[in-house]
């Protein structure tokens, strides 16, 4: 049985110039918004990504018919100020 392919499809990081025409952004808020693009590339917070990625990989390989895990909400982007 061939090994299942495991891709992590990620939203690309934003080009900071995309935010250049939003003058209301303070440096802190600009950094946060740039980060929210970057962090959409993770299923979970970066520090938890490796552990869960390993878990998902084993799970997908071991459960018949299992293809993907999808996370539409990324905890790390839910940041309160």
């Amino acid at each position: 049985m061939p090994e299942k392919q495991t891709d992590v499809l990620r939203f690309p990081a934003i080009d900071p110039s995309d935010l250049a025409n939003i003058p209301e952004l303070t440096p802190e808020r600009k950094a946060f918004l740039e980060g929210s693009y970057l962090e959409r590339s993770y299923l979970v917070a970066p520090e938890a990504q490796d552990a869960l990625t390993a878990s998902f990989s084993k799970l997908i390989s071991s459960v018949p018919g299992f293809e993907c895990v999808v996370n539409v909400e990324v905890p790390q982007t839910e940041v309160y100020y």
Partner: protein
Amino acid sequence: MEKPNAATDLDIYFVGCASMLNGLSSASDIVEREAQHVGLTLDGELNGKRASNFLDLDDVSGHTAREEFNLLVLPFQSAFGNVVAARRTILKAVITHPDKQQVWDEMAFYHAQSLSLHHGSWSPAFSDVILQRYYPEKVAKFELPATPEEALTALFTK
């Protein structure tokens, strides 16, 4: 002073073939245990256990008939696994649907909605900036291709 406070809730969906339907609960339990190790808690509803939240790649036509476009678009969001194959399955089904563009547009709507999530809690004034200025740029950058054929072509050129 602005201080980040990351949330710890994890919402997940599972995507697979019909044979996985009997394994949703056990798979969710495995993810839950692993998530707890890294300080995350699986959501009570969006934890992969419910069949109604499962994208069955063997029943794409059924999902389409039931207008479950929110499920059909899942592989086009942040996903781990055999994502390219899942996308290909969905796209081939959409392209052969008599109302393919309508189906695709509905999927694109839900995809754009997903991009609006979780910008955090801000002052009303800055929330308005987020909604009026940032969100449109984000959608423009990450929205799905205009047609399912374009999306399929993009898949093969990756």
